[in-house]
């Protein structure tokens, strides 16, 4: 049996943007998989602890006998095992650019988005919002350069950077709802605003993008938990 025919399982949660990346990538490749939902608030399953002993986090991809961890590493793995409908660009410099912005999103932008929700005091909140908005303007510019007039960062179809960024849209919308600020808007980020709609309506994305309402409720519950936990 070819490796690509072995059973595929995704260990994850419906709310995690990182897990969503893996599901979108598998959908793009039309690869069937079993979604094993972790109930992280009840403690981590044995399967998760066994499959990802180093970080003990989701997502984990289980492909046959192999386990792969870290969402962007999983997406690249999926792209290499199932080469049809390529996710990463073929040109090495374009690939490096896509990886650069993916790292920026994970290391800088998403932490600043989360900081809005956790900010204590108006000054801290304003500073966090400023950082997110600044980042979005950089990404708007990057979109212009990468898309070259086409629909996605990946040009005519969803690619690596679309997946990396697009899977954060659920949480971006929750933050907009809870803060009352349109972070993506017609004035500063007109192209990204349109791109966001296109991404969310794509066949590979529609069924795995969580509803903003549901996510917002989940965020409230999480925040309640965090505040209830005594600080050591």
């Amino acid at each position, binding site marked *: 049996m070819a490796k690509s025919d072995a059973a595929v399982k995704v260990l994850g949660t419906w709310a995690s943007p990182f897990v969503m990346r893996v599901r979108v990538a598998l959908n793009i490749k039309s690869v069937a998989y079993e979604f094993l939902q972790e109930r992280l608030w009840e403690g981590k399953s044995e399967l998760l602890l066994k499959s990802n002993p180093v970080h003990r986090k989701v997502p984990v991809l289980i*492909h046959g006998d192999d386990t*792969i961890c*870290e969402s962007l*590493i999983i997406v690249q*793995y999926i792209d290499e095992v199932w080469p049809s409908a390529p996710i990463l660009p073929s040109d090495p*410099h374009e690939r*490096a650019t896509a990886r*650069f912005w993916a790292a920026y999103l994970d290391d800088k932008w998403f932490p600043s988005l989360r900081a809005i929700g956790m900010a204590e005091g108006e000054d801290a909140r304003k500073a966090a919002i400023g950082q997110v908005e600044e980042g979005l303007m950089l990404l708007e510019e990057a979109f212009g350069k990468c898309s070259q007039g086409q629909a996605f960062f990946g040009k005519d179809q969803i690619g690596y950077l679309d997946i990396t960024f697009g899977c954060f849209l659920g949480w971006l919308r929750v933050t907009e709802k809870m803060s009352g600020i349109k972070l993506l808007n017609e004035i500063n980020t007109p192209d990204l605003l349109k791109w966001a709609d296109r991404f969310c309506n794509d066949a590979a994305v529609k069924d795995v993008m969580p509803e903003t309402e549901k996510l917002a409720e989940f965020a409230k519950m999480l925040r309640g938990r965090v505040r209830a936990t005594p600080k050591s």
Partner: protein
Amino acid sequence: MGDEDVVLLDFWPSPFGMRVRIALAEKEIKYEYKEEDLRNKSDLLLKMNPIHKKIPVLIYNGKPVCESLIQVQYIDEIWPHKSPLLPTDPYQRAIARFWGDFVDKKIYDLGRKVWTTKGEEQEAAKKEFIECLKLLEGELGNKAYFGGENLGYVDAVLVPFYSWFYAYEKCGNFSIERECPKLIAWAKRCMEKDSVSKSLPDQDKIYDFVLHLKKVFGIE
């Protein structure tokens, strides 16, 4: 500067810069090395890495590539035939990327804590630092290199920190070799290769640099 020229904007003690030096040396690529003064960054650096304004920056065909892990993969893709750094099998590639990512997430920050802190904070950092090195030793197993029989991606990503080990040991008052003998044996094996030994500065020079930084930042 011609279009085919390869330029590396770097800073001699940077372990991230060293990764790129090793990759270029493995591929036998001639390049122009430009030392940056980080207190007075060049116009070229600010133009080529406007987002982060950091070294290393690799410039090829007039176009910049930033972030050391991305640069190493880029170099491997542009010059695939000589000394391939990543394996060809997708699962083995994923494993290599995982451990490269692990080194990036842990080793620099923990090492930094070892030489910048004291007391309980330093002890905690030392403990976690050694735990991470032991995990890496486990991944190395009985192989000569993380890449198997030849130096590969994870080797290039991790071995630069070896040049900082003496500084960590002196500041933290511990012996890395006592805790992780296999890893030190691996590092010395890597240092037998010109691509590594010529890319890493002397451990004494790094220690002097750390002492200088401690003075500048007022760290005891």
